[in-house]
């Protein structure tokens, strides 16, 4: 694979979205068999990227891309190295198997096409996350995975539990995503680079920066929420509301690994610091233990698997941050191993649900006769999960212990956590893989195909919503899962076995390059399926022993776990609901406080703001006016007219009846007109007279039609408050105006008008010339305003709700 493959790589990244667009059509044409052609897309991508294996094995990283938003320094560029390639192969390979599986699982579901579409969109998004080189491209795909996960979890949206889970997942991972964006932008700010491949070179600068810790926390916020670390883990078990293929694909094998992937990807840039090596193991360890303990309490197969996934993610985070030799190796191995065995187990759980009608472990049993192949796949996966040779899971566990052993307290604590966690996971693995199959045949509801396990919205009548029951006779003939649903588990389980057996080749192809990419230096893994005597092996034996014991005492363990959890009482899941309710109620209270609904309050706040706007800057920036000069030649007649205006004003305020108010308004208006006349504005005076007359007339018309008292009696406190606000504003305006007119005046415009009105514009009345010619566009707007006002008033008067429009004589609507 070389640089000229760039268009093909681009096509491979875009192909899932294109396939998603045609999936519904294909399903309408082919029914559930559309899964086959659709599965070719991820299979093709898998095959395509296999071609990169030789290069990546050799330590090379493939980069390439296109300019996307050069103005914002964002490129659509990819980095395909030892870390991203196994992910790519996992994502595309498992997608193909999941599509086939969904073909069988959702057979007959009316929205199966949409389901395929969402799965493909998710695959495209996840692929983008793991190959992205550019920060913002990574973020975009990250959020796309959150969005597609939202759509998939909420697939059966008629149930409130599904809706809740979908929103919860989106809010938690989306919120984390925003933290991630903050972190990435902060890193960009600190280092000046916006791609991962360049970031490595700036790692020392980044780690030395005072903002390193903030950036780390923000990025961890994104990674921990996506990878369900405690206390952000609660969305993952709730995401089990989604159909099982979704759980198998997103919430075990791929999407939840995105956070771990991010940590691995940024390990060279952010890792190897005390903060990194403390926070990650602590959170990881707590998650590991919490996940397994809560998992013990569950009886639903999917929930048991979900909590072990949480625990596994905790283990992965713990090892990614542990910082000792072998730690990163173990993380790489465990990641791949987990994807393989967890995917299988989820698909098995789905198959059991599909065929037997229930996922409750207390009710299942004796299925080995009816579903032998499923049982075989389940056992292979459980053996890998439990960490038994020669499976890949054993190699991973050995490597984990290899990394953890040491004599300092830190190593001891985490080793203990790992042993306990792994032991419990062993028990749960076999609980899922063994218990439903062995033992006596039980009374089971029987198969239901497609429809009832994922109830669609009842746009179609006659489909019942009840889960797990379909009214058929108990003990109905349970048969093996269809081939479409068997392919996935079998392939993945065998892969886990093969990888363990052919460990040398596996390490050379996948895990060593992966670890080298994470560590940014050449690393080699040598562990093989052949156990050899050592402390890690001893720990493995202890783990297995613990697991076996707990398995046989599973019911007691379940009760113990349930009791201790009840004792604690509260958990982040309830916290989420409480937080949401609190948020809604709090928002409601705050909004009502601000938006009171009263016009009077609104106007008051506005004027308080205006008063502050006028007075504060004058005070702060010392823009007070200097004392004005009493005009030298102020004639008595001028002062009298001013006095009349002011008297008119106060008369309006104090008016006790309509007549006084109207007359006073007229008085102040006419006084203003006289003022205009006194100071050389006859046109203005004329217009003011006319407008004032009209205003008074219309006011009188309105006031006499309505039975109003024009005076309002404000109580003492209110009057004082209003008066103060009004005085503050008035004073502010006066002071500002005074200050403004004390600036030397620029008379150029006035001179221009006075010079050219007659000569060029042929008019003597300069004001008129300005209105009509120099500033005619203002007049155009003014005329438009008057016209529209007329129309608006007509509409106001004419349209009455209830239809009793009374047409006037000249109304166009009136019939002749």
């Amino acid at each position: 694979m070389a640089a000229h493959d760039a268009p093909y790589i681009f096509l491979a990244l875009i192909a899932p979205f294109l396939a998603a667009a045609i999936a519904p059509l294909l399903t309408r044409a082919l029914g559930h068999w559309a899964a086959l052609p659709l599965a070719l897309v991820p299979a093709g991508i898998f095959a395509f990227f296999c071609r990169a294996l030789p290069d990546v094995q050799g330590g090379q990283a493939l980069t390439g891309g296109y300019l996307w938003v050069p103005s914002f320094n964002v490129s659509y560029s990819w980095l395909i190295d030892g870390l991203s390639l196994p992910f790519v192969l996992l994502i595309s390979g498992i997608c193909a198997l999941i599509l086939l599986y969904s073909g069988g699982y959702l057979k007959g579901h009316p929205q199966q096409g949409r389901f395929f579409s969402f799965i493909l969109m998710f695959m495209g998004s996840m692929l983008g996350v793991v190959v992205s080189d550019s920060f913002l491209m990574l973020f975009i795909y990250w959020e796309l995975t959150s969005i597609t996960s939202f759509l998939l979890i909420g697939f059966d949206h008629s149930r409130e539990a599904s809706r809740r889970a979908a929103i919860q997942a989106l809010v938690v991972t989306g919120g984390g995503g925003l933290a991630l964006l903050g972190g990435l932008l902060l890193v960009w700010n600190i280092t000046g680079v916006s791609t991962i491949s360049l970031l490595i070179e700036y790692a020392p600068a980044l780690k030395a920066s005072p903002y390193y810790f903030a950036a780390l926390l923000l990025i961890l916020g994104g990674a921990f929420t996506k990878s369900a670390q405690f206390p952000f883990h609660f969305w993952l078990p709730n995401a089990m509301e989604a159909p099982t293929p979704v759980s198998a694909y997103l919430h075990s094998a791929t999407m939840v690994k995105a956070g771990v992937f991010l940590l691995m990807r940024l390990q060279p840039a952010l890792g190897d610091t005390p903060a990194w090596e403390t926070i990650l193991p602590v959170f990881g360890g707590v998650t590991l233990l919490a996940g397994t303990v809560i998992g013990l309490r569950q009886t639903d197969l999917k929930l048991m698997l979900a909590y072990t996934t949480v625990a596994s993610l905790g283990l992965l985070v713990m090892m990614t941050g542990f910082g000792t030799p072998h730690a990163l190796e173990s993380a790489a191995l465990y990641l791949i191993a987990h994807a393989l065995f967890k995917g299988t187990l989820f698909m098995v759980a789905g198959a059991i649900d599909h065929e037997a009608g229930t996922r409750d472990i207390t009710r299942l049993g004796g299925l080995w006769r009816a579903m032998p192949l499923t049982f075989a796949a389940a056992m292979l996966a459980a053996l890998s999960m439990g960490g038994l040779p020669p499976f890949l899971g054993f190699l991973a566990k050995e490597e984990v212990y290899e990394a953890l052993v040491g004599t300092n307290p830190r190593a001891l604590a985490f080793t203990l956590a790992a042993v306990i966690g792994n032991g419990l996971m062993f028990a749960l693995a076999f609980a899922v893989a063994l218990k439903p199959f062995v033992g006596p045949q039980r009374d089971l509801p029987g198969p239901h195909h497609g429809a009832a396990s994922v109830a669609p919205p009842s746009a179609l009548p006659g489909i019942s919503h009840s889960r797990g029951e379909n009214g058929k006779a108990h003990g109905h003939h349970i048969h093996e899962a269809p081939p479409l649903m068997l392919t996935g588990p079998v392939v993945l389980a065998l892969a886990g076995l093969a990888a363990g057996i052919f460990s040398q080749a596996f390490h050379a192809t996948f895990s060593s390059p992966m670890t080298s990419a994470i560590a940014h230096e050449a690393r080699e893994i040598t562990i093989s399926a052949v156990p050899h005597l050592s402390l890690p092996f001893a720990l493995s034996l202890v783990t297995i022993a613990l697991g076996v014991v707990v398995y046989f005492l599973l019911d007691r363990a379940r009760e113990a776990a349930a009791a201790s959890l009840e004792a604690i009482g509260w958990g982040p899941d309830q916290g989420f609901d409480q937080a949401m309710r609190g948020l809604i109620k709090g928002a409601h209270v705050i909004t009502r406080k601000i938006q009171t609904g009263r016009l009077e309050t609104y106007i008051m706040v506005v004027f308080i703001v205006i008063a502050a706007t006028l007075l504060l800057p004058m005070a702060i920036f010392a823009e007070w006016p200097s004392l004005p000069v009493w005009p030298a030649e102020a004639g008595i007649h001028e002062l009298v007219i001013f006095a009349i205006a002011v008297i008119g004003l106060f008369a309006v305020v104090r008016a006790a009846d309509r007549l006084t108010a109207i007359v006073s308004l007229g008085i102040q208006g006419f006084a203003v007109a006289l003022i205009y006349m006194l100071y050389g504005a006859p046109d203005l005076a004329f217009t003011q007279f006319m407008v004032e007359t009209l205003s008074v007339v219309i006011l009188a018309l309105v006031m006499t039609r309505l039975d109003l008292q024009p005076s309002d009696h404000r109580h003492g406190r209110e009057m004082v408050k209003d008066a103060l606000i009004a005085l503050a504003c008035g004073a502010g305006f006066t002071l500002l105006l005074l200050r403004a007119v004390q600036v030397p005046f620029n008379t150029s415009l006035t001179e221009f008008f006075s010079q050219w009105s007659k000569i060029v514009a042929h008019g003597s009345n300069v004001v008129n010339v300005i209105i009509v010619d120099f500033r005619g566009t203002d007049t155009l707007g003014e005329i438009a305003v008057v016209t529209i006002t007329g129309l608006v008033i007509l509409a106001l008067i004419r349209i009455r709700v209830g239809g009793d429009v009374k047409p006037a004589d000249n109304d166009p609507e009136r019939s002749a």
Partner: protein
Amino acid sequence: MAASSIPLEALEKSMVLAPVPAEHWLVIAPPVWCMLVGAILIMVRKRMGLQSWLSIPALGGLVLIDAALLAVVIREGPITMVMGRWLPPFGIAFTVDLTGALFNLACGIAALAGGIAALGDIDRTRRTYGFFPFLFLMVGGVSGAFLTGDIFNLYVWFEVLLISSFGLLILGSEREQLDGATKYAILNLIGTTLFLIAVGILYAVFGTLNMADIAAKAPTLGHDAPMMTLSLVFIAAFMMKAAAFPVNFWLPASYHTPRIVVAGLFAGLLTKVGVYALIRVMVMMFPEEGNAYSIVIGVVAVLTMLTGSLGAIAQSDIRRMLGYMVITGIGIILSGVALGAQTAISGALFYSLHSMIVMLALYLMAGIAGRMGGSFSLHELSGLYAKSPLFAALTLALFFSVSGLPPFSGFWPKAMLVKAAFDFGAWWQGAAILVSGLLTTIAATRAFALGWWRMPASGAVVPARMTAAELIPLAGLTLLSVGVGIYPEPLLALAQTAASGLLEPVAYLHSVFPSGVPTP
């Protein structure tokens, strides 16, 4: 007019004698076109069919004019046309730079989408009493505001669009409309009056009303003039228009009362005029004062964002929820204005354009939801996904777009603004943008879950279809948002150029005063 009777030197000193290139007529074309068509529509008020046949093509024509204007401005830089050919700054100049042209085009597109949706939403009575003339005059006022280069003229266009908006608001005279209109009218009147007062003070200080002239003179005034107070008055006036906290009461009080097309056009256009005016005055004309008030605008921005997004969560009526989302968007735009650098201003411009398109689309979506579901309240709305999956898909896309999630158009400006906030040390603003984005996501997805995903209690849902008048604008605007989200480069680059042009208005001044700014 006997030109020979006017001495040549008088003409040279008073008028622009150089011939006007043909494409410069595009500068005045949008408002004139709107007023012309509006006038014709007033004359044919009673002819329903003719109204539709005239309006929609006319709106299409407006979009073409706006696009052509943008193309010319991209090619040539800011262009000026003086009304009456009077020498600037004495006459009224219309100066279009990239900012004005971009806003203008977005306005035209929104108007076209609104017009098409109106065909289905606006009934006969309303059309008789002037819906389309009001629409055209409002759009004409908005265009005029974006294109003018004279500050008093800006006030006049503000009033044109305000009175037209009153008309649209009260059309139908329903009780809620009258109640909402009272509050809207009085509060907006105070706002534009404050603007007029600020213009008056500005005239007292500068003696000129031409924006380029003022921009050139502002740095020379120094301590002579009360610039800080004057600037704050402008800021306050535009904050009222743009619905910033705490003077945005009028928006949640009235936007949910008229027909949905009217509400959508308001949400898309009216608040952005306030934002545009704020940017024009505080970034281009008074940059020093704008920088000095950066903290004030920043605090207002953060408060607006947070109260807006909390307000959105608190609503049961989806129209009121959208009103609060408008406010949240304004807060985000204002934080870009507060930061004042090129990256921040370009983010603010980009976000404004995105908001114009997406908010209108969201209101149209709400209208369809109300029609299909029979109610606008989240307590009663349900089952819309089952009724129309296509509608649900478009709705979800729009919800994600307004929340700022990729791959939609809201993501890029948000990322730009957060980055700018971090670059300039304003961590709190960046954090506020991210938090308000999360809160908006919560509000939107809850609304989607309740109204679309949740099934009605009765269980049975009758599938419904969107009419052409509903689907075309909604799908068109949504596709535009998706397109810009996937390929934002052209718009982003334009926004950056526009922002540079505002921060260093050399080209703007040059287009108004080709031979240098006149000194008094």
